C-alpha cells in the first residue's frame, strides 16, 4: 500500500473542483487513456482577463493524480496567470505534504496541464489532443524529439523536468515523467540528457579548487565530483564506475558496465584523475582496481 500523506488522502477522497467550466477561458489537456493518467484543466479568468477566478478539473488516474489535480485547482484560484505559471511541480507536491517519489509524475502532469492551458489561452498553437492513440505524445505541445516512445515524451520536456527537480538518475526521471518506465529502450538517452543538463549547469559558474581541505571534506568532495561530474559522462557511453576507497591522495575506483575491461579504461582513469585534481586537490592519484 502506498504511503500517502493525510493531505493526499483527503484530496483523493474529497477532491475539490471536480467538473468542467463550459465557458472556460483556458483549457489544458495532457496525458491519455493509454498512458494510464490524464488531466483536463479548466480556468476561468476575471473581466480583466488576468486573474484566475475559478478552476475545475477532470482526471483519469490513480489517487495521487486525482489529489494533485485537486491541489492544483485550489492553488491557482486568485492568482494572476503569471503567478500561476510560477507554480512548479514541487509546489504541488509540497501542498500535498509530499508524494512518494514513484508518484511525482502526477505533480508534473498537473504543472504541465496548467502550462498548456495558459499557453493556449495566450495564443500559442497547441496540437489537438487525441484520445484514441496508443501511446502517442503525452504532452502534445512540447517541442523537441520524442525520447520515450512508450509514453511519448520529448527531450525538451525531459530536460526541463531534470533541471527543475535536479534529477541525477534515470530511475528518478522515470518516477517524475514516466519516461523509461515502459520498454526501457530510451534509458541510455535519458542518461545522456541528465549528463547534458549537468554539463550546462556547470558552465554557468566555473568551479575552483578550494585552497585548503580537511580530510573529511576532501573525501566528501571526491564523492560529489564522481557522482555529479564523472559518472553521468560515463553513463552516456554505457559505462559506469564505483568508488572503492579513498586513502589520503589515493582514490581507488572500479570500472563497471561498458567501462569494465574497456581498452581505453586507462585513459578514462587519467580523465577522472584530472577532473579530481581540477576540482578537489592537485595531489590526487586515481588507481583502477578490479573489484
Amino acid at each position: 500500500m502506498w504511503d500517502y500523506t493525510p493531505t493526499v488522502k483527503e484530496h483523493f477522497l474529497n477532491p475539490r473542483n471536480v467538473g468542467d467550466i463550459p465557458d472556460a477561458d483556458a483549457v489544458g489537456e495532457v496525458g491519455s487513456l493509454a498512458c494510464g493518467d490524464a488531466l483536463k484543466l479548466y480556468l476561468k479568468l476575471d473581466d480583466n482577463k488576468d486573474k484566475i477566478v475559478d478552476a475545475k478539473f477532470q482526471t483519469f488516474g490513480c489517487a495521487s493524480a486525482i489529489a494533485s489535480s485537486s491541489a492544483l485547482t485550489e492553488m491557482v484560484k486568485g492568482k494572476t496567470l503569471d503567478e500561476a505559471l510560477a507554480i512548479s511541480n514541487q509546489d504541488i507536491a509540497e501542498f500535498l505534504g509530499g508524494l512518494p517519489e514513484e508518484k511525482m509524475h502526477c505533480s508534473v502532469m498537473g504543472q504541465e496541464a496548467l502550462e498548456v492551458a495558459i499557453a493556449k489561452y495566450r495564443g500559442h498553437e497547441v496540437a489537438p489532443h487525441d484520445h484514441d492513440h496508443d501511446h502517442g505524445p503525452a504532452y502534445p505541445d512540447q517541442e523537441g524529439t520524442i525520447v520515450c516512445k512508450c509514453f511519448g515524451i520529448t527531450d525538451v520536456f525531459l530536460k526541463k523536468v531534470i533541471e527543475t527537480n535536479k534529477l541525477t538518475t534515470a530511475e528518478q526521471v522515470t518516477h517524475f515523467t514516466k519516461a523509461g518506465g515502459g520498454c526501457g529502450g530510451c534509458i541510455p538517452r535519458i542518461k545522456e540528457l541528465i549528463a547534458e543538463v549537468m554539463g550546462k549547469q556547470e558552465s554557468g559558474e566555473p568551479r575552483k579548487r578550494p585552497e585548503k581541505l580537511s580530510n573529511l571534506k576532501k573525501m566528501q568532495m571526491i564523492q560529489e565530483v564522481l557522482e555529479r561530474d564523472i559518472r553521468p559522462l560515463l553513463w552516456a557511453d554505457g559505462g559506469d564506475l564505483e568508488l572503492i576507497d579513498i586513502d589520503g591522495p589515493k582514490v581507488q575506483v572500479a570500472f563497471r558496465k561498458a567501462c569494465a575491461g574497456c581498452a581505453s579504461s586507462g585513459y578514462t582513469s587519467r580523465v577522472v584523475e584530472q577532473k579530481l585534481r581540477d576540482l578537489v586537490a592537485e595531489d590526487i592519484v586515481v588507481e583502477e582496481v578490479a573489484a
Partner: protein
Amino acid sequence: MKEIYLDNNATTKVDEAVFEEMRPYFCELYGNPSSMHFFGGQVQQKVDEARKRVAALLGASPDEIIFTACGTESDNAAIRSALEVFPEKRHVITSRVEHPAVLTQCRNLTQKGYRVTEIGVDSEGQLDMAELKAAVDADTAIVSLMYANNETGVIFPIEEAAAIAKAKGALFHTDAVQAVGKVPINLAASKIDMLSLSGHKLHAPKGIGVLYLRRGTPFRPFMVGGHQEKSRRAGTENAAAIIALGKACELAGENMAIENTQVKALRDRLQSELMARIPHARINGGAAERLPNTLNIAFEFVEGEAILLLLNELGICASSGSACTSGSLEPSHVLRAMGVPFTCAHGSIRFSLSRYTTEAEIDTVIRELPPVIANLRKMSPFGREFLKEQ
C-alpha cells in the same frame, strides 16, 4: 471496520484447525525431528504424517514430497536443478504470464547465455500450444509453465504441455501455487516431473512450500548442508509449519467440492451482477477455463489504484493489475501478454474468494462497487465523454 477479504490469491487466512494442529510444536514439542531422542522423534512422526497428507492431496507418494520455505524457493530449485542435471542443454521454456518467481529467474538466465523462450497466450489468457510444440527441442533442459494464473485464474492444459516436453526429453515443472487445493490434481497419472506449491495460498501459514519431485527424476539440490529431506533440501525442518501444511492439505482435500460449488457460485454471482450493473466492463480470461475463486474484471475509463483505495475505505480488500499500484508504469505483464487494451488494463481489479467468503460479503461488493466506478467515471475526462455517447 470488519474487512471483506477478497484477495485470497495473494494470501489466505490460516484455518483455525490448522493453527491448532501446529500450536504445540513451538513451546512444548519443540524437538528437532532429526534428533535421536524420543523428544525429537515424536516431531519426526508428525512431519512424516504431514508428508503423507500432502502426498495424498496430490496423488503422490510421500517420498516425492520435499518441504521448502515457499513457492518461490520450489520454483528456483526446480529450474536450477534441471540446468545442472543437463549441463549441455542451454534452452529453457516458460510462458509470458508466469509469476515473477519463475519469470525473473528465466530472464536472468538469458544473461548467463541460456536461450529462453517465453510462450505467448491468446486474448483469453490461454497458452499457445502450437508455439510450445514448435519451441521444444533436444536442447531444452526444462519447460516450466504455471498450472493456473494468479491474476486471471486461467488454467493451462498442463498435462498436454507436459507430454510435449517429455516427448523431446525435457524435464517438466509446473508452478501450481494457485491451483493446489482449488482443482483436483492426481500426479500418479501424470507426466509432470516437478510441481511447486505454497502453504499460505491454501490456509496454512506463510513460510512453507513444497517441491514435488517425481520418483526417479534426476535432481541437484539448491540448498546444501545437512541431510534433511533425504539431502534434497538442507536446513532444519520448519516442523510446525510442515505439520500445519499437512493439516491444510487434508482440509483442502475434504473441501475441494466446496471450491467448485459454493465458492464458484459466489464468484459467478459477483461476476454476473457486476457485469449487469456496470457498463463498459469486461472479464479478463472470462472465456477460458478458470479457477473457481478468481474474477479479474476491467472497468474502462477509470484507473485501478483509485478503485482499490476507494474499496479500501469500505473495508473491501482486492488487488489490481493497474500500473499505479505496483509503482511500475505499465499494466500487469499478464494482461499485456493477453493483449488487453491499455484502456482496460489500467482499470482491472482482481477479486479472489475462498471457502470463508460469505454471500453477505459478495452482496456488499455488488452494492458498493457500482457507485465507486460511477463516481470515478464522472471525474474522468474520458468516462464523461464515452458515457455521454450512450
